[in-house]
């Protein structure tokens, strides 16, 4: 995208993001009213499931099974959350999820950045081979390599370990392509200037590229953190002990599939709320960079 386009983009963003332009003498703004109303309706529909889950998590079992269903929160919040926490050792699982999400996100970003950097800024034998190799990984999502990756992990002795949980998820072609696309937009002049200054490649990466890439990195971090936190199939296969299970799997374990224990939906909902809080919090806090980073990557 040209410099002019980027400038326009900035303008539009500023305009749209800022508060409404100072109104001139206008007739009643039906348009704005309609938009507000529709937006609120959208938000309500989208938020309802979570609201309902929250409500259930504050009720006791009698209230849960009551008909008509109670749609307002009740008073058992603390005891439910505490019970859910203890029942499946939530603390440990949150920790595992955190380790997994952060390690995968940081690992992917680091590895991809280095690879993209090498592919764009060096001419080396096997450059295109590397590129295609990385590209092909897009065609091999976890389910496709499930059974055999499990065996590979077993051979390495990484079953039920943090390495086993995180490393196989770390080679990300999408991140590499994102960085590659971004680096391709860096003008040659900048590189030449840096070289004239006597900067080596690593210094260039660290001092020039990295600062420019923050928006991308932030957006990627959000996406990858969520990806890592919400992984289901892989941790299910790789972990065998409760001590290594992640929060999303542990939640599924709270649902009794057979008999002697009655389904304690209030605890399950409490667990669900706890399980989704960290990734949602990350989105909320980083939403500005998230959207910004996506805009940049659209170029």
């Amino acid at each position, binding site marked *: 995208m040209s410099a002019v386009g980027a400038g326009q983009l900035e303008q539009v963003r500023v305009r749209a993001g800022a508060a409404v332009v100072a109104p001139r003498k206008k007739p009643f703004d039906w348009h704005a009213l309609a938009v507000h109303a529709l937006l609120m309706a959208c938000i309500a529909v989208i938020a309802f499931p979570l609201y309902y889950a929250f409500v259930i998590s504050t009720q006791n079992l009698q209230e849960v099974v009551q008909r008509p269903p109670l749609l307002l929160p009740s008073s058992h919040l603390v005891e439910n959350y505490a019970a859910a926490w203890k029942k499946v050792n939530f603390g440990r699982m949150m920790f595992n999820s955190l380790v997994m999400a952060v390690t995968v996100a940081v690992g992917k970003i680091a590895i991809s950045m280095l690879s993209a950097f090498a592919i764009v800024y060096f001419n080396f034998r096997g450059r295109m081979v590397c590129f295609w190799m990385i590209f092909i990984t897009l065609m091999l999502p976890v389910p496709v390599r499930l059974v055999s990756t499990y065996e590979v992990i*077993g051979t390495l002795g990484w*079953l039920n370990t943090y390495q086993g949980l995180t490393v196989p998820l770390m080679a990300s072609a999408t991140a590499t392509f994102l960085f590659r696309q971004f680096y391709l937009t860096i003008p040659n002049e900048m590189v030449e200037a840096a070289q004239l200054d006597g900067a080596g490649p690593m210094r260039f990466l660290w001092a020039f590229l990295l600062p420019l890439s923050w928006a991308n990195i932030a957006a990627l971090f959000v996406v990858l953190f969520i990806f890592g936190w919400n992984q289901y199939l892989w941790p299910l296969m790789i972990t065998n002990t409760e001590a290594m299970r992640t929060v999303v799997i542990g939640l599924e374990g709270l649902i009794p599939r*057979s*008999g002697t*224990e*009655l389904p304690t939906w209030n605890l399950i909902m409490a667990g669900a709320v706890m399980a989704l809080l960290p990734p949602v919090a990350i989105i909320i806090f980083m939403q500005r960079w998230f959207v910004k980073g996506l805009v940049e990557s659209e170029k």
Partner: protein
Amino acid sequence: MRLTPKPWIVSALALILATLLAAPPALAKTEIHFWHAMTGQLGEAVNELVKQFNESQSEYEVKPLRKGSYAETLTAAIAAYRQKSHPHIVQVFEVGTQTMMLSGAIYPVYQLMKEQEIKVDWKDFIAPVVGYYSKDGNLYSMPFNSSTPIFYYNKDAFQKAGLDPAKPPLTWKQVEEYAKKLIASGAAKCGFSTGWPSWTMVENMHAWHDQPFATKRNGFDGLDVQLLINKEFGVKHIGQLAAWQKDNIYSYGGRAGAADPKFVNGDCAMYIQSSALIGGFTRGVKFQWATAQLPHWGPPYNKATSIIGGATLWVFKGKPAAENRGTAQFLKFISDTNQQMWWHVTTGYLAISNSAVRNLEAGYHFKKNPDQFTAFAQLTKGKAGPNSQGLRLGNFVQIRDVIEGELENIIAGKKPAKQGLDDAVAKSNDMLKEFAAQNKQ
């Protein structure tokens, strides 16, 4: 500097030395790893049982580990075996029996006990349990938690509907009659529901009515087996279930134990599920309830016995003899009469030895807990025959899944009973053929 050390140093050293020498030689008790699939109250019972063993001797320490559901535990054990990091003992559910038996990875328990020279009175085990897990008269895995499906009913609801709470229905016709009364009087929303649909309504119903489930004596006599559930009896019973579903006489509630809430909430007044639920119901159910034997269609079908479900403990090969000794001792411990009695009373699973049952009878346990006796009576007092020895089929996990899938199609009215059962049989026979090919000795 003085050459002789200070007196206090000498005493200190002596003390340390003495402590070291006096430390128990098994500072490292030999560990025996035991993988199981029990959760909740049952999981606690397992831990308690293991603790009792560990405290009863000082050489071995059994370490129990819950690996997930039965299927997950089996998969994990197999994967671990392939990586040579398997446990000593693994709990496998009854449908995995054939897979384990033919695997070449296991150490049959009769052999283990023989080689460790531990005397076990094999004849003391109750016949239905032993029959399921033996080959050529020898027991391959140690029975651990066995149960059988029984009939539960809501006495309060019966009362409300004008039925005698001391008289549960004995025949299926009576079940239908009672269900209509229960629904009409508003005492219940539905007549009855079931857990583990294939186990209760197909496998057990065939055995109970002395009908063959599969050829070759339900698979005991060979690998070229075919299912027989689409014959006259199967079509009649399952067809009837589908018809009853329309009037809420029967109300399908899902697989495994997903339908348990229907009984516990009082929605369905009658329920067919594992006898192992007695403990849980005693704790969780708010109304008066009781158990009875499974309903029967009556003539022309004979009344045989029901078959067991649950799991047993299998021992893996590839462990040193010293550790095998510990394994053998643990298995002996849990099959001792006292442990059997304790396990039964705590969990509701069957005690598997006749001596344990006799002791329980002598201690009036069954008089005080008549519901616990229903399962025993159903298993041992009927006329056992070749159709009620149990089932020994390969790929049984998938076959059950196929059957339950087709049951859902039939009950939902998507397919008539004959067609659904025919489809189930066709798919299952394919799987059985596949298994036979895989295991050509």
